[in-house]
């Protein structure tokens, strides 16, 4: 229903001269594509009223208030000022915004699209919410240094449309490399938080969650996924035996599920065009004693839901066999989920939202590491063993 509404809105926006109302609708939809609510809407709070604390490797950044409150929000911002902040990461005074705001991706927005978002935000109820700014460690708290960061990482993306591809692919490329800012999580970062261009789409780790590769790797990426499965995953959070949890659950509920089906298809089309990376050598065999311990624990604690062979249950319990998250180079998600549990995304199309309990209270670090090593190296999976010392208590 919602999707159909958006589709109508989008078609109208594309076809008609932008009346004020159309512009607002276009802006609203662009905030969905940009998943702006993920940072700027506090959980359970007023839309886009900000104040949410965003953890980064350098400290905490507070997402600012985007409602048209004159004192604490965007009420006093001109459209030009807003467009510059959105696309180029500049404050009203010309200073730099921290790139927790993904402006290197949002540079894909045209000036007109930025204006539409500004027009939409201006229709929101003003909320007085003053929290903003950042709490970063030295030297990352020195905003002027961002000048150099910009020069290093805010490089212009290749222009679109690419005439070598059809319109659907180009739409997907626009969303993925632009508003969707997929690379913000799914591309590895340098120590300064910039994209490692050479490892684009090979996966990353964000806030302790593995963002798996989006490239064509059949094991760690999307090589084994069909385009339809990718689109279904964005819409429901459940496909290919996997379930969205952590930040991706939020992305699905706030953005993916609310996009048009055509845009999800476009994203899938683009992602399926990403080539696999060069093959890497297989990881060393894990110690047999650890595997034996892990097998016993797995059978007792994990198999009742995930299945004896890690097969899972579609839409309910993630499949561990062949899971890119399970065999990712870094075991962060595996360890945190065993330790703390996780809840899958719940959407109108797939409302179950099943959850896994945490085992921190009942399993020690060695046991958690053994289970992690076991599931990373069973049923065809292969990934480096996990040491007990890698498990945060």
């Amino acid at each position, binding site marked *: 229903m919602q999707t159909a509404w958006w589709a109508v809105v989008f078609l109208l926006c594309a076809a008609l001269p932008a009346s004020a109302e159309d512009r607002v609708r276009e802006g609203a939809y662009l905030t969905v594509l940009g998943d702006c609510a993920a940072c700027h809407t506090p959980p359970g709070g007023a839309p886009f009223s900000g104040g949410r604390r965003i953890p980064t490797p350098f400290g905490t950044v507070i997402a600012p208030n985007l409602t048209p409150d004159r004192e604490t929000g965007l009420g006093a911002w001109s459209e030009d000022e807003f467009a510059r902040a959105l696309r180029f990461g500049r404050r009203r005074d010309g200073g730099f915004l921290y790139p927790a705001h993904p402006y290197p991706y949002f540079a894909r927005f045209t000036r007109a699209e930025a204006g539409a978002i500004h027009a939409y935000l201006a229709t929101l109820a003003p909320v007085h919410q003053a929290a903003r700014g950042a709490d970063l460690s030295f030297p990352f708290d020195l905003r002027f240094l961002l000048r150099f960061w910009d020069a290093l990482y805010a490089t212009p993306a290749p222009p679109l449309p690419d005439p070598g591809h059809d319109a659907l692919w180009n739409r997907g490329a626009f969303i993925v490399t632009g508003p969707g800012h997929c690379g913000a999580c799914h591309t590895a970062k340098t120590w300064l938080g910039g994209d490692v261009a050479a490892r684009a789409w090979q996966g990353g780790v964000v806030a302790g969650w593995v963002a798996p590769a989006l490239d064509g790797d059949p094991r760690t990426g999307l090589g084994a996924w069909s385009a339809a499965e990718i689109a279904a995953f964005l819409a429901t959070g459940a496909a290919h035996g996997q379930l969205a949890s952590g930040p991706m659950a939020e992305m699905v509920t706030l953005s993916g599920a609310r996009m048009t089906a055509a845009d999800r298809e476009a994203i899938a089309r683009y992602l399926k065009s990403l080539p696999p990376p060069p093959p890497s050598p297989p990881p060393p065999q894990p110690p047999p004693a650890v595997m034996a311990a892990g097998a016993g624990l797995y059978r007792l604690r994990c198999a*009742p*839901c995930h299945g004896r062979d890690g097969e899972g*249950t579609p*839409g*309910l319990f993630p499949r561990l066999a062949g899971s890119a998250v399970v065999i990712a180079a870094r075991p962060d998600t595996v360890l945190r989920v065993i330790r703390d549990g996780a809840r899958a995304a719940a959407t109108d199309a797939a409302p179950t*939202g*099943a959850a896994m*309990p945490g085992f921190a209270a*009942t399993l020690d670090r060695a046991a958690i590491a053994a289970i992690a090593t076991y599931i990373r190296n069973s049923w065809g999976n292969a990934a480096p063993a996990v040491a007990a010392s890698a498990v945060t208590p």
Partner: protein
Amino acid sequence: MTIRLKPVDAVIIGFGWSGALLAEALSGAGLSVLALERGQFRDTAEDFPPSRAPDELRYAVRHDLVVKPAENTITFRNRADQTALPVRAWGSFLPASGAGGGGVHWNGQTWRFRPSDFLLKSTIIERYGKNFLAPDLTIQDWGVTYAELEPYYDRFEYLCGISGKAGNLGGKIQPGGNPFEGARARDYPTPPLTMPYAPTLFAAAARACGYHPFPQPAANLSRAYTNPLGVTLGACSYCGFCERFGCGNYAKASPQTTVMPVLRRRPNFSLRTGCTVLTIAHDGKGGKARGVTYADESGQVFFQPAEIVVLSAYTFENIRLLLLSGIGTPYDPASGKGVVGRNYSYQTTSSVQLGFADTLLNPFIGAGALGMVVDDWNGEHYDHGPLGFIGGAYLAALATNGRPILNHPVPPGTPRWGAAWKRAVAKSYLRTTRLLASGSSLSHRGAYCDLDPGYRDRFGRPLLRLTFDFHPNDLKMSEFVTARLAEIARMMRPDWLVVAKRQAPYSIVPYQSTHNVGGAVIGGDPATSVVNPYLQSWEHDNLFIVGASAFPQNPSYNPTGTVAALALRAAEAITRRYLRAPGPLT
């Protein structure tokens, strides 16, 4: 000071299966719905993780999912000339508390009653004449037929993903199913569970006796299933911790695993836990119900106005709230007049335990409704004339409750303690099983509920008083079916066997069944019923009383399927008809 809250379209008292089904239907129709639940909120992953749920001491022995007697209990006596005493530790039955209600800790046995069950009195009279009925039996027809309920049975089975095998598809008998069941429109949504060894032996023996064994319909799912609301359930792991436990695998149908994920997303629905409803407000007989007064956990009292009131607490609390609120005429056992508290009935159970010297039965492989059943001695399809009783039982071998604290069977003659006892337990545990006869219970003049004249709850309100003993008809029935059960047991060639008959007087101490029914029964005549065939109060047309309290007598089967079918039918009558033309539904 009572705080008056903003009105809602519908308030629901009690959030078990009935409350959850009504909540889904009414909120789905766009009404603002508030459910009030006296117990705690419960969620699968938070409250029943597989790493913690199989805690037999906490759940099976200490009854963690059951209402604490200090918070609410009943008083009990066998006969009206005795003084009733309060139940201070639950025994014979376990009324639930908390979100999901009994739907959390049930076994999952999901039956349909048979066509003749709904027309019991007229069937008996037609077949055997008026004089066949003992004069103190108060059984009656339901005012609703199996055919009318069939679509709602079907809907509930597909909501839950029930595992089973149809025995009668559109009038055509299906091999492997129950040939005595009413016609169903389609088969169960998922196939039967895999049968362990003891039920397999039972089925072979029953077949040798000429009976028709079939798999028990189960809400413990044989495979993963996504219901029409889009909610996914998992496959049963046969862990054996069902009855008295929540399921950590999302594999047992409950409000949590079937409708709550959808309700959670609806802005027009809310569930308030820790809220005990004290009374239902109304304008007097013939007027409207106005809402409910309830207390939260701090003792603060609220008045919640509502256009529709759904009373869907447990049987006992349904009856008590009606009596406390002055709704309906209380039943008077002396005159037989009055309706509220009338026609309480129960379940007449008996069992046979049997052990083998060498055959391993592995009772740790279990589920709530995992087993084989024969229905040959149930209901009205055999001649009761020469037998002199009404009713019957289903006979079953269920691989359930094989947990080690409460289940340590030993052959007769074993010492009660010491080394010999331990040796016997170690040998017998894996080699013993139990067969069950789940028998009907007929309502009679001396079985009823009223308000206790002395004992009061923590809010100062009188406790409900239960007066009940087995009717001689039911004891005769039980004697007969237990003998048939023992015949099947002997056919299994055990090395030892103990027959546990059901005898009077009824004792409220040993666990028998949480199938307490009646007291606010359904019917076509306001003189003998509290609700009409749509569960609508005869006195207040915007009050619906949902649950097993509506059963005029108890057939042999477990009640949940019929509770749900009645609830779904009432919900549809409200959304399709009552909302358009508020008034008595006929």
